[in-house]
């Protein structure tokens, strides 16, 4: 009796999980299906298969430019946040110093403040200091938000790092730099890739901070946001969303592969 009850319960759980996955993926699945819909309005009546929205997307320079801009922003953010985060993580994990735990909490701040506040504060700051808005100002904002993420990931990796490997290298006569290059760096590489990828996505997805800090250029979010007013552009935006998603997916797979190979 009890076993039967357990079986039923497990089935309910499995069914729930399947529904959950459907719930989570629903917006993307319908977007994928109807990006091929031969209808000039966005509707879930499927009128026939077409690739014209994809053709229109590839023929829209501003849309392609937006994707390029998003890439620039995300790459810049990934580099800055990963370098800063990795360095900070070394200090936080390997040394004990006054104010260390306070500093750790302080470094969480950009993660626990609504990004609206960060956007507004930075915009006031740039405008008072007299810095014109550009891609750089957006990268500054994104890096600020991505830093806690990359720092935390690297802290987690460094805590699990076996320092006797470094000591062994030193004992064998390697200097600090060589030890770092030949021992430490290869070992923390997977962590660095994970941190860079997370920083990249933080920037790639952001709309709130970009909204305030972007100058005349447009990234993907702002391009879509701006085009929503024009009903005839909507089908093309579906194609653009799918292309963007595919790129993100390829990147995710790549970073996962590098991590996998690196950890082996």
């Amino acid at each position, binding site marked *: 009796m009890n076993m039967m009850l357990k079986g039923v319960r497990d089935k309910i759980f499995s069914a729930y999980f399947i529904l959950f996955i459907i719930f989570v993926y629903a917006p993307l699945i319908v977007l994928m299906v109807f990006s091929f819909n031969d209808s000039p309005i966005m509707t879930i009546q499927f009128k026939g298969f077409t690739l014209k929205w994809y053709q229109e997307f590839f023929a829209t320079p501003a849309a392609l430019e937006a994707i390029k801009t998003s890439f620039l922003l995300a790459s810049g953010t990934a580099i800055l946040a990963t370098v800063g985060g990795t*360095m900070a993580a070394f200090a936080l994990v390997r040394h004990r110093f006054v104010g260390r735990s306070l500093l750790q909490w302080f470094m969480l701040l950009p993660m626990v403040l609504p990004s609206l506040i960060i956007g507004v504060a930075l915009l006031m700051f740039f405008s008072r200091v007299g810095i014109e808005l550009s891609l750089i100002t957006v990268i500054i904002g994104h890096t600020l938000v991505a830093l806690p993420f990359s720092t935390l990931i690297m802290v987690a990796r460094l805590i699990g790092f076996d320092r006797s490997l470094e000591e062994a290298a030193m004992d064998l006569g390697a200097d600090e730099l060589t030890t770092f290059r030949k021992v430490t760096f290869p070992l923390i590489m997977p962590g660095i890739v994970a941190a860079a990828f997370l920083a990249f996505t933080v920037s790639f997805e952001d709309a709130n901070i970009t909204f305030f800090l972007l100058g005349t250029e447009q990234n993907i979010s702002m391009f879509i946001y701006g085009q929503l007013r024009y009903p005839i552009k909507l089908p093309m935006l579906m194609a653009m969303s799918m292309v963007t998603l595919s790129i993100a997916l390829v990147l995710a797979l790549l970073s996962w592969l590098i991590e996998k190979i690196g950890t082996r």
Partner: protein
Amino acid sequence: MKDDTTITEKVLNFLRGEKRSILLNLSPSLLWYLVFLTAPLVLVVTISFWRTEDVILIPTFTLEHYITFFTKIGARGQLQYIELLLKSIGMATAVTAGCIALGYPAAYYLSFKTKIPKYTLLIVLMGPYLASYLIIIFSLKFLILGHSGLVNALLMNLGLITEPSGLFMHNQYAVIFTLIQSWTPWLVLPMFASLEKIDKTLLEAAADLGASPMQTFRKVTLPLSMPGVLVAVLFVFIPSVGEFITTRMVGGTTGYMIGNTIQKLFQRGYTWPLAAAVTIVMMIVTLIVVFILLRKVSLEQIMESL
């Protein structure tokens, strides 16, 4: 002269060895935080006490914007900003509760029930997070909740309604639903991480002592997974309070939140000080929530959730 050398030596000694490497390693991010976070926040606080004449900011000290925030009466005779702040907190609470209610069973299934490799499933769950949330809102707005969207089509097919309903779009429930939809997968992670850490022998012990599965869950599993739930609250409540783009896209007039006010006040040059004051009040509210949560959550738990 002699003093000089000792000072130089002191500085050099300080910069040598361990202290040097701490300073060197911390300085890039610390500099970033000081210049691009601390300084701007100090500026916002300062400007919240200033006045404007036309669009020019006049440095002075006035509390008028805070007084406006706490006392301004809106069109319906309500306290305009206070009511909006409370409504935003209420909506963010609803989003948080919804996310946890939907995400917890999924995390529980992943940790205890699945026979498929759980980390593979976890990665699958993270998939939608790769899409910019604007793309998700875009899809929800037109293809799912909208006039010719999936929900309306389903209900019409079922014969429950005869023509498309506008009830699913442009109101506060649409905002809450959209936020729940886009945040839930991300929140499974912290809850899963803390469920994974539960020593499974504890559950067996509870069962051996005669506890029913429900009792075991209530007395053992749930309390032990609380830290993960709190990290989830941290991850969703705070961005939800400050939401302004989702509300503009799917919120209509009833979905309007405090973030929209800040953004609007901010776009008009002459209301910067008031915008700054509203921002500061909102920041204090979120920091109180963060402070309460962080007393119960360790840094390790946040790290495991990334």
